[in-house]
């Protein structure tokens, strides 16, 4: 109080600097997106005649419908990104659901039903978090071959589930070790068994970490390109591969507006997930400090 005659003034200055920095950084990250959106609304003629970076003189959604359902990608009959987009959805939903469920169960067992060697088991599982995608390509394709799942959606789902379980287990286990263990003891004395405790006590307390895991897994699996391109055939390729094939097509004119619209379409679901559940994401990451 004694230091400054007007302490509120100093804090306003500090705020101003803070916001200025935040706005600059936000703009830096937003500019590419804005550019993409603007370009996607321009017509090819306009782009050809003018600059690549320019305000749209006209507004049309043609590029979007082109990218979605009209552009010829590869030699397939179904046009546009739509079939790829549907593949991605068919892949991502079961992958996220199964890997999250397994992670929650693993975390529950490793926190509350420890067995001889459970710490070792957890350690071994963690190694999975450090394995690069590239390292498992060959053995995984061999395995998928043996299982008869090569080039199919179930094969892709299996790959994503196995790869994701390490992460989901880590998330849930680290969240559960911070829950009071007396809760489980009390439930045991109340007569509850393994599943009743999981579904009635532990799962209802897991909302924050559930959101974190779902967002994490959804983003990872939706954005994955490597597994998608290696373990799929044209009928099961996800949208990342579709986008790549569309943009890298070496025949005909480069349609910047369609490429931009396609890229946004491919990124849209992850954006939606973040916007809808983003605040829970931050909350969930810090949820370890919350008391029971």
């Amino acid at each position: 109080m004694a230091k400054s005659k007007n302490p509120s003034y100093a804090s306003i200055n500090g705020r101003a600097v803070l916001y200025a920095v935040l706005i600059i950084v936000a703009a830096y990250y937003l500019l590419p997106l804005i550019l993409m959106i603007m370009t996607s609304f321009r017509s090819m003629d306009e782009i050809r005649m003018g600059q690549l970076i320019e305000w749209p003189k006209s507004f049309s959604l043609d590029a979007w419908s082109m990218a979605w359902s009209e552009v010829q990608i590869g030699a397939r009959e179904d046009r546009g990104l739509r079939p790829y987009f549907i593949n991605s959805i068919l892949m991502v939903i079961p992958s996220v659901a199964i890997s999250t469920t397994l992670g929650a169960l693993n975390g529950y067992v490793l926190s509350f039903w420890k067995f001889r060697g459970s710490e070792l088991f957890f350690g071994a599982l963690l190694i999975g978090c450090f394995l690069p995608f590239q390292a498992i390509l060959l053995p995984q394709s061999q395995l998928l071959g043996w299982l008869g799942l090569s080039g199919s959606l179930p094969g892709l789902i299996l790959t994503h589930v196995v790869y994701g379980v390490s992460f989901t287990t880590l998330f849930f286990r680290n969240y559960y070790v911070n829950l009071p263990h007396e809760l489980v003891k009390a439930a045991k004395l109340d007569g509850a068994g393994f599943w009743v405790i999981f579904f009635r006590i532990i799962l209802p307390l897991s909302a924050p970490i559930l959101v974190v895991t779902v967002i994490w897994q959804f983003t990872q699996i939706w954005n994955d390109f490597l597994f998608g391109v290696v373990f799929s055939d044209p009928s099961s390729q996800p949208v990342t591969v579709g986008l790549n094939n569309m943009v890298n097509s070496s025949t005909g004119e480069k349609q910047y507006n369609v490429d931009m619209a396609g890229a946004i379409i491919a990124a849209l679901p992850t954006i939606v997930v973040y916007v809808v559940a983003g605040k829970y994401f931050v909350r969930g990451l810090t949820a370890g400090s919350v008391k029971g």
Partner: protein
Amino acid sequence: MAELKIDNVYKSFGEEHILKGISLDVTDGEFIILVGPSGCGKSTLLNCIAGLEDVTTGDIILGDTNVTYEAPKDRDIAMVFQSYALYPNMNVRKNIAFGLEIRKMPKAEIAEEVARVAKLLQIEPLLDRKPSQLSGGQRQRVAMGRALARRPKIYLFDEPLSNLDAKLRVEMRTEMKKLHQRLGTTIVYVTHDQIEAMTLADRIAVMKGGIVQQFGTPQEVYDDPANMFVAGFMGSPSMNFLRCEVTRHENDYAVQIESQGTVFQLPVDPKQADLSNYVGKTVVLGIRPEQITHVMPHLVSEQFITQVPVKIEVTEPTGADTLILARINDQECECRVHPQEAGKVGDTMDLLFNMSKAVFFDEQTEARL
């Protein structure tokens, strides 16, 4: 309600031995307190009774059944935890009803039981609240309510009051005692607080190092401790331990103490100890602060009371009494005097040493003589 018999229970985690042969017989309706410093195995023993931990060897018999190898849910035991362990996602009503639901009690009976418990513990207005909306004392009540609802054979309490503030703890202590008197249930209660142990228990088991040092009524444990550990652990301020030499005194024995350069003989009550083998040797005299008081004329002439002048080193007024720290045999000795009689620091003051309740310990083994 049932009696509980713990028979020679051992519990080890690998090479670490937590319980080393615990045997306790608890009769029906008794309030038993397990007390001891942290790490003495009292909570482990409680978990073993509950079945949350397996015993390594030994038996736990509840009523007529040996429950040693039964799962917690089959033992018909309820437990109140230190952290209360209320289910955060359920309201108070659901918390109390959970155990009944699991045991497939009909809905109407559950509602009846919840109402009964809520009335008993006066938590009716809280029934629809979540645990996070309750104060510490209210959570404590709900935790007790959850235990009471099932009407189990035996109740276990694991330091249930230690998360409450001092005032509330004293209130809840009284309430718990009233509750036990009304319900007449068998209770095993763990605490590290010796005052809680003294005030609540029918019998106290003082534990240290995985061994029950003494199992007796509060007064027995207080007046007649089995060894120096029990003597020092029970009572606040704790018992004075003065090393002193044994001498012959008339037909009996006495211990010698020295204060301000003068040697005094404190005659030993033969009912308290037989020191015939210790003449000329050193023993540990255990004397509680309240046995060293200011001079009260009607006591001066009693047989085992000796007047000794001491120098006051520190005074600690507690309101009801003033504690005086004196130096005897070059060791610190705490004495409890009336506030108005207490002298100032540095003064010399006459004190009465009442040996009729004094106890003696072997210097090496710390066992009672």
